């Protein structure tokens, strides 16, 4: 009995030493070496692909933002600032619930199923809003023109991109509200549309932040 207790003890001691030495290898040396290479070779990307406008950081090209009007009294959620290209909905984003010294945005999805009543309502309302907001000056958006990404929340809630179709139906609205011609905005969208890598990887997308930065530059000219 004593013998087996002491041999179990020896084994656990070996296990602990193995864990500690492997922690140094995998948990200290490995991440530090990778960080060193990453910072030296891809500094901007390793630090979050920040975008600057006139020397001021306005966000990351990878992280979606909201483009809303200030919250008015009596509103629960702020209304979108329709002057700017609008991103996808993000109903799954959360806010900090622990360690509340920070105001972190928690990435996440809605996790609602296809037959969920909330989701059906969100999608229906979003579709109606997209049709209404984008039908301006004789240009009418048909419900069948609205692509799925315009009315659904992404997996992270931080999707930086919209589909080219969603960008396209916003063009007339953006032109009208920013006193630009439709052709000007059309060209802007075309310049900021990325196709599939090598023709098949990824989906065609339009980066909303980059597009809005370019739009602001155009309007301030």
């Amino acid at each position: 009995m004593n013998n087996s207790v002491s041999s179990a003890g020896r084994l656990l001691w070996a296990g602990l030493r193995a864990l500690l030495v492997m922690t140094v290898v995998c948990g200290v040396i490995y991440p530090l070496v990778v960080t060193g290479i990453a910072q030296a070779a891809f500094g901007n990307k390793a630090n979050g692909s920040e975008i600057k406008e006139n020397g001021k950081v306005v966000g990351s090209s990878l992280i979606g933002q909201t483009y809303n009007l200030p919250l008015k009294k009596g509103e629960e959620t702020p209304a979108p600032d329709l002057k700017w290209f609008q991103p996808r909905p993000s109903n799954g984003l959360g806010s900090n619930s622990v360690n509340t010294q920070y105001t972190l945005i928690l990435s996440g999805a809605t996790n609602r199923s296809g037959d969920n009543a909330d989701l059906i309502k969100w999608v229906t309302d979003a579709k109606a809003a997209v049709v209404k907001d984008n039908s301006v000056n004789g240009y009418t958006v048909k419900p069948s023109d609205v692509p799925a990404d315009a009315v659904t929340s992404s997996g992270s809630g931080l999707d930086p991109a919209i589909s080219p179709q969603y960008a396209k139906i916003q063009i007339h609205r953006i032109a009208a509200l920013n006193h630009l011609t439709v052709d000007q905005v059309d060209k802007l969208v075309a310049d900021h549309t990325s196709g599939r890598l090598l023709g098949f990887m990824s989906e065609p997308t339009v980066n909303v932040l980059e597009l809005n930065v370019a739009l602001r530059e155009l309007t301030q000219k």
Partner: protein
Amino acid sequence: MSPVLAGVLQFLALAVALGLAYRPLGDYMAGVYSSTKHLRVEKWIYKAIGADPTTEMRWPAYLRGVLAFSFVSVLFLYLLQRVQGSLPGSLGFSSIDPDQAFNTAASFVSNTNWQSYYGEQAMGHVVQTGGLAVQNFLSASVGIAVAVALVRGFARSRTGELGNFWADLVRGTVRILIPIAAIAAVVLVACGAIQNFSGIHDVGQFLNEHSLGGSQQWNGGAVASQEAIKELGTNGGGYFNANSAHPFENPSGFSNLFEIFLILVIPFALTRTFGRMVGSIKQGYAILATMVTIWVGFTALMMWTEFHHGGPAFDIAGGAMEGKENRFGIAGSSIFSVATTLTSTGAVNSFHSSFTGFGGGITMLGMQLGEIAPGGTGSGLYGMLIMAIIAVFIAGLMVGRTPEYLGKKIGTRQIKFAACYILITPALVLCFTAAAMALPTPGNSMTNSGAHGFSEILYAYTSGANNNGSAFAGLNADTQWFNTTIGLAMLLGRFLPMVFVLALAGSLAEQKPVPETAGTLRTEKPLFSGLLVGTILIVAGLTYFPALALGPLAEGLAS
């Protein structure tokens, strides 16, 4: 180009890349586990452990090594989270509560990476990088070690010796996982994944005047280095809550395919390692063919159901884009979701709960097959070899002769071990699910109601007991009930099967080889691969059909 065609091309590109890596990596791994040489760094590590890497272990000793190391790992990871509040480098985050700390420790040591916490607001640099990411390496390495021990059981005769656990653990980590992960991490950074040690910091926004305090707050972190091993070791625990859907973890369509490649590359290549070590490459190809058949079939079904987008909300939206990122689209999300649930990864680039009813069912069935096509690092291979034993047994029953596999007799003892192995996980999944449904409070955690609510709980225990870690994440799993029961399911679902695998390995290694005769079932032929696919589908189907009928099948048929 249509999205469907682009998706098919993505899948083909992935298959070609995996095919190119198959031989060199498989042969390399066979060399690693057969070599008698020790690298200098390995000698230092053995010295620190106080272990002699040349000592051969019989199965009980090998098992004791696995269990002792894993026990210490759970304890260490638990304590690390419990004292997080007092550790420097933790961003000022507080310590994790006992039930959640137990759940997370069990989760990462068992290669599950189920997460009932939000990464960005709960875990600081020390716990993420020095605790969780370390287990990403070590749990994967333990899995491969156990698989290699079973392969040695087939390859060796009249000995009972299965190798040295410490040597297998250290070699797998130092020679296989770290080099590939380091390269992969740099590739991911080049795509845009972040890799720094800054704290939570403010970043300017486009519309400064309107946002929360005029800025947004971001976490820094060693994300790319953790992401690489998270996929490569089929772990799956995200740095951020959104996991591989988060742009900092998975920035582009290319990084998406690259991460799927990392998930699948070791599990597939291990069949080559197996073939090499048992002395017949063709035996490895037969196992590979079985895995590939299931993988291709599941991916095709998933693409079909997701593009078809059945479900009221998706019909209104005009596509099943809920919970999916634009840069991946339907195809990139479908390929990823199948890869992650047919292995023990559980990383997600899109949220399975918002897949179509059938799509959610495919992810669940993928795990319920036992995660063997190609399965987790190591666990996929040993799980598949257990199924191969069941298959030769069934074939033996048909012709009335004692079955053999790879020159070893599959007698009563071996079949008992194999049968125990395949009963453990379903028993855990179905009993815990039934208990959770029968009790009054666990149901309060559901976000969705009806069939999908049941699916959330069935998915949770399926994912836990099979060591997957993905979720129908509407379920609020941070309750004492779920933290405790899923924690137990993960530990039992990981280590009980290992007991039977190693006992089986020991019993095989003791045997003397049986000469091949005209009556021997040719297990390197397509006929056997077909038999194996059938066996796997029938065993899982018979076990889980009633439960699946109540959840995803009911939802899918109604839409």
